[in-house]
C-alpha cells in the first residue's frame, strides 16, 4: 500500500504530461496557420470560433471521421504499426525532460519531471534516433514509390544529422560535468550556455531543424516532388498520428534548445513561476521554428548532405576542441 501510494504522484504527473502532449498539436496547428497567414498578410482561419481558435478542433473531427484507407498492395501489419512507432519516441523524450526545480506541494517534495535520469541527454538523443523507424516502416509498408523515396531521404538525413547533433551537445556536457538535464540547467546559473557555446548552439539548432524535418530541411516530405513523402498513402487517424509525432518532435526540440543553451527555467522575472518562464522560452522557440518555415525555401538534397557532413560536422568537432582547450 505504501509503495502504491508513493507511485501516485508519478501517475498523476504521467497523466498530466501525456494529456497535454496529446492536446498540444491543436493549438500548434492553429499557431502555424496563423503565422503562415500573417507572413503573407492574410488573417488565416477566422470563421470557426474567435479568430478561428476552434479550427483545429474542426480539423481533428474531420480527420478522425475520415475513411481510414489502406492500399491493397500495402503490408497491412507494418502499415498499421508504423504511425504508432513514429509516435512513441517523441513521448519517450518527454520522460527525461525536466520542467523545473523540485517544488513543495501538499507537504511533499514533487520533482517536476517524470524521471530525472542521470544520463538524460544521452537517453533523449538515443530515443529520438528511434523515431526514424516509424518513417522507414511507413515508407516501406505503403508500397508506393513516393513513400519509399521520402523514407529513404529521411533515413539518410536523420543518420547524417544525428552525428553533428550529438557532438554539438558535448560542449554543454563538458561545462556541466553531467548528462543530467537538471544539472545542466543548474550549471547555467548566472551565465547561459548560449554565451559560452554559440557554435554548439548553432550546430544543435540547425541539426535539430533537420531532425524534426522542418523547412528548410523537410526533404522527406517535400510536397512539390514527393506528394507528401513517407505518409503519402496515409489518411484519417493514422495520418493524424504522424502529424502529432511531428509536432511533438518540434516541441521536444524547442525544450532541448532552451534547457541546453538558454538556461532552462533560470533567469525569469520574480513574479513568474519558473516553469511558466520555461514554457515562455519554449513558445518563443516554436515561434522561431515556424517563422523559419515560412521564410526559407527547401534545400536541394545534395546541399542538405553537404551542410551536414562538410559544415556542421567539422564545426561541431571544432567546438569540442575549442571548448576543451579553453577549459584546460
Amino acid at each position, binding site marked *: 500500500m505504501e509503495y502504491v501510494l508513493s507511485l501516485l504522484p508519478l501517475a498523476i504527473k504521467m497523466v498530466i504530461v501525456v494529456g497535454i502532449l496529446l492536446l498540444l498539436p491543436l493549438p500548434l496547428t492553429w499557431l502555424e496557420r496563423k503565422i503562415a497567414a*500573417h507572413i503573407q498578410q492574410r488573417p488565416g482561419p477566422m470563421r470557426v470560433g474567435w479568430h478561428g481558435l476552434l479550427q483545429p478542433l474542426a480539423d481533428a473531427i474531420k480527420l478522425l471521421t475520415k475513411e481510414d484507407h489502406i492500399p491493397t498492395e500495402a503490408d497491412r501489419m507494418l502499415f498499421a504499426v508504423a504511425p504508432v512507432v513514429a509516435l512513441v519516441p517523441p513521448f519517450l523524450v518527454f520522460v527525461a525532460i525536466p520542467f523545473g526545480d523540485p517544488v513543495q506541494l501538499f507537504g511533499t517534495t514533487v520533482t517536476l519531471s517524470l524521471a530525472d535520469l542521470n544520463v538524460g541527454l544521452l537517453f533523449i538523443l538515443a530515443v529520438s534516433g528511434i523515431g526514424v523507424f516509424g518513417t522507414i516502416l511507413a515508407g516501406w509498408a505503403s508500397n508506393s514509390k513516393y513513400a519509399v523515396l521520402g523514407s529513404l531521404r529521411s533515413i539518410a538525413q536523420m543518420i547524417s544529422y544525428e552525428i553533428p547533433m550529438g557532438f554539438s551537445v558535448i560542449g554543454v556536457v563538458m561545462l556541466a560535468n553531467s548528462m543530467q538535464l537538471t544539472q545542466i540547467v543548474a550549471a547555467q546559473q548566472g551565465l547561459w550556455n548560449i554565451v559560452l557555446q554559440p557554435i554548439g548552439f548553432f550546430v544543435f539548432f540547425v541539426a535539430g531543424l533537420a531532425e524534426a524535418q522542418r523547412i528548410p530541411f523537410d526533404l522527406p516530405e517535400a510536397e512539390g516532388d514527393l506528394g507528401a513523402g513517407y505518409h503519402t498513402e496515409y489518411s484519417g487517424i493514422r495520418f493524424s498520428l504522424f502529424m502529432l509525432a511531428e509536432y511533438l518532435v518540434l516541441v521536444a526540440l524547442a525544450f532541448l534548445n532552451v534547457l541546453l543553451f538558454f538556461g532552462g527555467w533560470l533567469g525569469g522575472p520574480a513574479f513568474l513561476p519558473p516553469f511558466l518562464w520555461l514554457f515562455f522560452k519554449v513558445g518563443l522557440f516554436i515561434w522561431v521554428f515556424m517563422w523559419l518555415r515560412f521564410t526559407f525555401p527547401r534545400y536541394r538534397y545534395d546541399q542538405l548532405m553537404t551542410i551536414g557532413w562538410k559544415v556542421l560536422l567539422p564545426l561541431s568537432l571544432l567546438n569540442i576542441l575549442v571548448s576543451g582547450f579553453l577549459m584546460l
Partner: protein
Amino acid sequence: MARTAGERHGWIGRIFFADLLAGLRLTLGYMMSKTVTHHYPDNEKWVPYQRHRGHHFMNTNDQGEVNCVACGLCSVICPCDCITVIPFETEQGVRRPKVFDIDLARCLYCGLCEDACPADAIKLGQEYEVSTTNRATLTVHLEDLIAAPRKAENGGLVRPAKLEPTGGQHSVLQSGPSSGLDWWSRIRRPR
C-alpha cells in the same frame, strides 16, 4: 539584378548568413504588418465603382412609368440572346414592354444593352451577389428590374456589412464608418 545581402557583405556576410537574416527580417516585417484581407461576407463588403457592370436595373420616369419603349434593340444586340422583350400599346398610345425578361444565367454583363438603349432605360448596376439555389429565380422580370438597386454612390469603398442568412445568404451593407478608398495602402511593400 541586385546583389544578395550575403554577397554585399563579403565573406563576413557569408559566415553570419546575412542573406538569410535579411529574409527573416522581411518576413518579420510582414508578420507584424496589418492584413489586407476584406472580411467579405461577415464584416465587410467592397462596393464596386460606378463603372462596374453588375445586376441590371430599369429606370423609371417622374410618373413612375418605365423608360423602356420596347424597341427591342437591347435584345437584338445582346451577344448571348438573354433578353426577351414583348411590346404592347398603353391607353395613351405609348409603346411599352409587356414582358422584359433577362436570363442572368446567360448574361455575360457586357453592357451592350445599356449602350444600345435609346431611352436611358436598361442599366447595369453595382449589385454583384446574384447567387441562388434555384435556377428559375435567375430569370428576372420587369418588376424585379424596377425594384433592383440603382447605382450606389461612392463606389470603391470597403463598407461594414453583415451576412444575412435569409434571402439566399447575401452580405448586406450596414451603416457605419467605411475604411475608405485607400484600403489597399495597407499592403506592405519592401523598399
